[in-house]
C-alpha cells in the first residue's frame, strides 16, 4: 500500500536557475525511474521523479514551471510537505554497456539510476544535454560518479555542440556505418594490423547493450529514430491525478496502459506500439493536446 506520509524538507539545493533539489530524511525504498506524488495541501498534487535515493534519504529535483512548483520554490528547510509513493515501473538494471540519454529536468533521475547501474557493474555512457551552459544539470555530480559523461549544449557553450540526440546519433549510427563502409583503420586503433576485422572490432567497442532515455518527448522520439535494433527504455510523462491506476488520466493510446502503474518507464516493445508517442498527450480534462 502506498500510504501518504508528511515530511519535513531536510535540504534544499539550488542547482541552476529555476531548478532546485529537495531532500527528505525518509526510507522511501524507491527504484530508479519511479516517481512520487507531492502536495502541500494548498492546491495541487504533482508527480516528480526521484533523483536520488539512499537507505534513509531521498531527493527530487524540480523545475519551476507553474503555480504549484512556484509555490514549492517559496518553501524553506523544515517546512512540511506530504508525499505518496514511490509509484510506477522502474528501469531495467543492466550490467552491460549502456547509454543514457537525458535532457532538461528529466536528467537528474539518471543520477539515482547511474548509482544503481554502477553497483551492478554496468559500463555507463551518459549524454547530459541542455540548450545552453546555464541550463545543464548535475554536471559536477555526474562527473564524480566516474562514468563516461558527455555534456552537450545545443549552442555549444559547454561540452559538445549539439542536442543529446545529435550526440547519440554520432555514437550509434555514424560510427557504425562509417566502420562498416570504411575498413581502413584509424590512427591509434589497435586493430590496424588486421584491416579485415577492423570494422567488426570497432563496431563491438561502440555497441551498447541497452539505451535509456529521460527527457522531452520529442527528444525521445528523435532518439528512437537512431537507436536501430538495440533494446531501450524511455521514461514518459503524462498528466497524473490519482497515481494509483483508477482515474485513467495517464493512459496512453492505443494500449490503454497507465503510465502511473505500467509506466512511467516503458520498454521498447511497448513504445513501438504507441500511436500517441511524439504526437499528442492529454491535459487535466483529458483533452488531446498536440505536441
Amino acid at each position, binding site marked *: *500500500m*502506498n*500510504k*501518504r506520509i*508528511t515530511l519535513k524538507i531536510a535540504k534544499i539545493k539550488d542547482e541552476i536557475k529555476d531548478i532546485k533539489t529537495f531532500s527528505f530524511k525518509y526510507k522511501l525504498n524507491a527504484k530508479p525511474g519511479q516517481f512520487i*506524488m507531492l*502536495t502541500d*495541501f*494548498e*492546491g*495541487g*498534487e*504533482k508527480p516528480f521523479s526521484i533523483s536520488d535515493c539512499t537507505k534513509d534519504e531521498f531527493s527530487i529535483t524540480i523545475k519551476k514551471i507553474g503555480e504549484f512548483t512556484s509555490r514549492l520554490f517559496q518553501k524553506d528547510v523544515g517546512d*512540511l510537505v*506530504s508525499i505518496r509513493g514511490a509509484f510506477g515501473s522502474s528501469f531495467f538494471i543492466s550490467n552491460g554497456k549502456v547509454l543514457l540519454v537525458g535532457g532538461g529536468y528529466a536528467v537528474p533521475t539518471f543520477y539515482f539510476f547511474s548509482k544503481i547501474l554502477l553497483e551492478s557493474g554496468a559500463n555507463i555512457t551518459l549524454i547530459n544535454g541542455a540548450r545552453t551552459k546555464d541550463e545543464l544539470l548535475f554536471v559536477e555530480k555526474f562527473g564524480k560518479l566516474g562514468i563516461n559523461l558527455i555534456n552537450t549544449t545545443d549552442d555549444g557553450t559547454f561540452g559538445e555542440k549539439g542536442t543529446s540526440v545529435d550526440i547519440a546519433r554520432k555514437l550509434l549510427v555514424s560510427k557504425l556505418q562509417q566502420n562498416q563502409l570504411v575498413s581502413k583503420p584509424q590512427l591509434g586503433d589497435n586493430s590496424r594490423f588486421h584491416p579485415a576485422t577492423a570494422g567488426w572490432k570497432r563496431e563491438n567497442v561502440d555497441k551498447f547493450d541497452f539505451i535509456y532515455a529521460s527527457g522531452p518527448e520529442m527528444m525521445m522520439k528523435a532518439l528512437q529514430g537512431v537507436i536501430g535494433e538495440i533494446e531501450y527504455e524511455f521514461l514518459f510523462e503524462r498528466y497524473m*491525478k*490519482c497515481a*494509483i*491506476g*483508477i*482515474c*485513467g*488520466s495517464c*493512459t*496512453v*493510446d*492505443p*494500449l*490503454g*496502459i*497507465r503510465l502511473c502503474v505500467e509506466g512511467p518507464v516503458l520498454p521498447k516493445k511497448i513504445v513501438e506500439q504507441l500511436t500517441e508517442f511524439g504526437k499528442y498527450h*492529454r*491535459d*487535466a*480534462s*483529458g*483533452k*488531446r493536446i498536440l505536441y
Partner: protein
Amino acid sequence: MHNRLKTKFLGFEVRSPLVLPAGIMDMSFSALSISTENGAGIVTSKSLTLEPRTGHKGPVVAEFEGGFLNCMGLCNPGIVDGLAEINEFKERSDTPVIVSVFATNVNDFLKLTEFVNTSKGDFLELNLSCPNVFDEFGIPLAASKDEVHKIIKAVKKISELPVIAKLSPNVYDIVSIAKAAESAGADALCMINTVGPGMLIDTKMVKPVLFNKLGGLSGPCIKPIALKLIYQTYSDVNIPIIGMGGVKCGEDAIEMMMAGASIVGVGTAIYYRGIEVFNKINNEIIEFMDENGYENLQEIPKLEKLLM
C-alpha cells in the same frame, strides 16, 4: 469468455455481467479498451459535460483502511471530445458502452442527449448524483424525486438510447426516488454513486487531505450500504439495476445479484486487484456457480423481500 457468464441487459446480450463504472479508467478510447480486454462486459464513459472540465486541484484521492475518498471534480474533455473517444472505441470493439453525462438542469441534459444521440454509444446514463461538486452545484439532483422525475421525463422524450438513472446513496428514501425515475421512463437504474461525502485530515499539517476537503467514498467500506439500497429498491421497481459499490471479488458480485442487481459494476477494486480484476471476478463467479450448483447467472436467486 465463458458462456455461463452471458447475460441480457436491456436487450443486449453481454458476455460478462461486469461493468466498468463511470469515472474509472475511462478518459480515453484506449482506457475503455483495456477493461474490455480484461473481461468487462459493458463499459461506461467518464461523466461528460457540455464544456471540458479540468476537475479539482489535487490531492483528488485519499486512501484509508476501508476504501477511498475521491473528489475528481468531474474532469472530462467535454461532450464533443468525449464522444469522439467513445466512437473510436466502438470502431475497435463491439462491447456495449454506457455514455454517462452530467448536468445541473433540464436544458443542459437535453443538449447532452442530442449529442449522445449522434454517437455510437449504446446507453445514456444520467449522473444525477455526483457528491464532489457541492461547492459549485449544491445538493445532487438525485436527492429530489421531483427533479429526478422532471429530468428523466424530458430526456426520455428525445433520447434514442435507453436511459439509465445513476442514483445517490445519500438519501433517506431511495425507493421513492427510484420509483420517480421509473415512472418518468428510466429504462434502468445504476446504484450506487459514491457515499458521503467524507473527509480525512493530515494531522501533521492540520489540513484536509483532499484539496476539495470533501470526497465521495468508494471501495469495500460502501458495499453494505450499496447492498441495502439495492435490496430496498429491487422489489419496488420493474426495471433492471446495475449494482455497484465496493465489489472486489466474485462473492461480492453474487451478493449484489442476490440483492437485486442484474449486472454489477467494479471500479475501485481495480486498485486492489489490478486491471485484471474483471477476469478474476468472472472466474470467481464461475467457481461460485460450480460450488453451489448454479448452471448460469439466471439461476442465482434474489433475496426474499422482508420488511425493513
